[in-house]
């Protein structure tokens, strides 16, 4: 147990988190802690509750009980957009970008300014916005596609665009759900490079099945199984945990 730690050191403190869907406990009394600038990867078999954990943190799903503290603020009581404004960004498993808008417009919408109705009516596309959009577009390899509609992008490019949309929000905690799923080998390598660049100065929570990728980026790994933590620690430790080998890595 982690009782000895001082909670204030943690960026994210999840404790006793439980969510029950009609009696089925998708996440059951889960506790884990993420430090500043830590890259945490959550792995586990299908149905282990990985995506549900991210849904709970970002407010998409409401917790039945337990607490999620982000920088000392209780997230379980906040609305999704407030959680985003506190500094938590979330990327979904399937790329969710605005296909009827251009890459530029997609990124611009995520720019953290003018988020109210009247703020967005009076929003001006000034130099600051343009510069930031171009800067991010360059990072996500889409600089020459700024005026392309997002529905013309490839699957991998859409994933990058969504990562870029999070990046422009500049969150303190970035949550990525299977960022390299469905990508080609070369796209995968580029994404790893991209992630390595964007994780500086922030904490990242990643769900991923690609073990090679996990080894490349993880500081610490949490293995979930049936809504509970099966094992936690460095990749080295987790890989050699007999329980983990039995339920997950052995396959």
């Amino acid at each position: 147990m982690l009782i000895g730690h001082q909670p204030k050191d943690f960026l994210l403190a999840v404790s006793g988190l439980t969510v029950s869907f009609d009696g089925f406990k998708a996440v059951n009394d889960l506790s884990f802690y993420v430090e500043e600038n830590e890259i945490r990867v959550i792995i586990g078999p299908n149905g282990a509750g990985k995506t549900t954990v991210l849904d709970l943190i970002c407010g998409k799903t409401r917790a039945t009980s337990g607490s999620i503290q982000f920088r000392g603020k209780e997230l379980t009581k906040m609305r999704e957009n407030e959680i985003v404004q506190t500094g938590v960004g979330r990327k979904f498993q399937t790329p969710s970008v605005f296909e009827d808008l251009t890459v530029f417009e997609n990124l611009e919408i995520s720019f953290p300014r003018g988020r109210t109705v009247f703020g967005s009516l009076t929003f001006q596309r000034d130099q600051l916005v343009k510069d930031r959009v171009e800067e991010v577009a360059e990072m996500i390899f889409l600089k020459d596609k700024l005026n392309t509609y997002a529905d013309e992008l490839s699957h991998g490019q859409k994933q990058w665009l969504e990562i870029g949309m999070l990046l422009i929000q500049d969150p303190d905690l970035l949550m990525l759900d299977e960022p390299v799923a469905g990508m080609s080998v070369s796209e995968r390598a580029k994404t790893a490079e991209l992630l390595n660049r964007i994780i500086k100065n922030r904490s990242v929570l990643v769900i991923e099945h690609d073990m090679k990728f996990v080894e490349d980026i993880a500081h610490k790994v949490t293995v979930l199984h049936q809504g509970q933590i099966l094992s936690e620690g460095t990749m080295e430790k987790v890989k050699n945990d007999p329980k983990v080998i039995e339920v997950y890595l052995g396959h």
Partner: protein
Amino acid sequence: MIINSRFFNRSELMGFIALAAVLFVILPLTLDVFRLNLVAKYLTYAFVAIGLVLCWGYGGILSLGQGVFFGLGGYCMAMFLKLEASSVENTKIQSTPGIPDFMDWNQITALPFFWQPFHSLTFTILAIIMVPGLFALIIGTAMFKRRVGGTYFAIITQAVAAILTILIVGQQGYTGGINGMTDLRTLKGWDIRPDHAKIILYFVEVVLLFACIGIAQFIRLTKLGRILVAMREQEDRVRFSGYSVANFKIFAFCMAAVFAAIGGAMFALNVGFMSPSFVGIVPSIEMVIYTAVGGRMSIFGAVWGAILVNFAKTSLSESFPQLWLFGLGALFIAVVLAFPNGLSGLWADYVQPRIDRLFASHKPKAGWTDNSVADGAPAE
């Protein structure tokens, strides 16, 4: 030639000029007053259609209850006009002179309190905007904050339309019941019934219509317009980009309500009466059909849709009254199945490319609906 103004791109500018030419010059010069007044009636629905472009086309919120707001606006205007028409001299044969005739017929002996402020034109004009706006705010807040959307929302708006109709019909003494408010005569002493008044009212309406087109176009071009499009496609992504999706939906719904209400008020002025038959389910659905036929992504398309479908309605229902509803239904099915972007989509696919070829110096752009949205992006 003025081209590439920031507010309208070239095809929109042409649409603007064409519509302005038709409404300001061609129709007034070629039609007699009776027909021009019919066009004025059709145009009242164009206000509703513009609102639906924002709310449904852009925001993806299908409201099948726009008749409610059209009706609220229309009734506010009609109440003012009815009070003016019910002066003591005009109504001295009634048992209670000075109140509207239908109240007297229903044994009401004093003007109800909520009718009192409608003696003031300023109050009436404010009420035309505020009453439907607030009502939409209440419905929108109740629905969108609870994440009621899509079909459920559409059904609830239908229910609201049905309820309001029943209420108006049932409260005959206060509303004029099924007959509505008829025999509207003067606006601040100015008779709205003669031909020259009809012509002036027509032009007032067209000016208001262009003001609404301008407001809708402005909203479309701001970031809010792009958020509406984004929300229609990926609501969660908008939410997790830090926006309160409900507030944006409420805004779009309220704007659509206010536009519809202005249309309703102009209806009362131009047509000279208001009745519950413009509030209920069927007229509300018809309003959606005008928008769909014209093109729900195009502000100008929606205006044309309202004019053309109503024109077809008038001419067809004069000759084949029973067939009109079938025709309308068939038209809606055809639009949904064959040309989902309506007339403006057909125009953009078949006519616009030919025009673009004439202006060969200008490269045609990729998407037709989002041209203006792309315009603002920085040039590489």
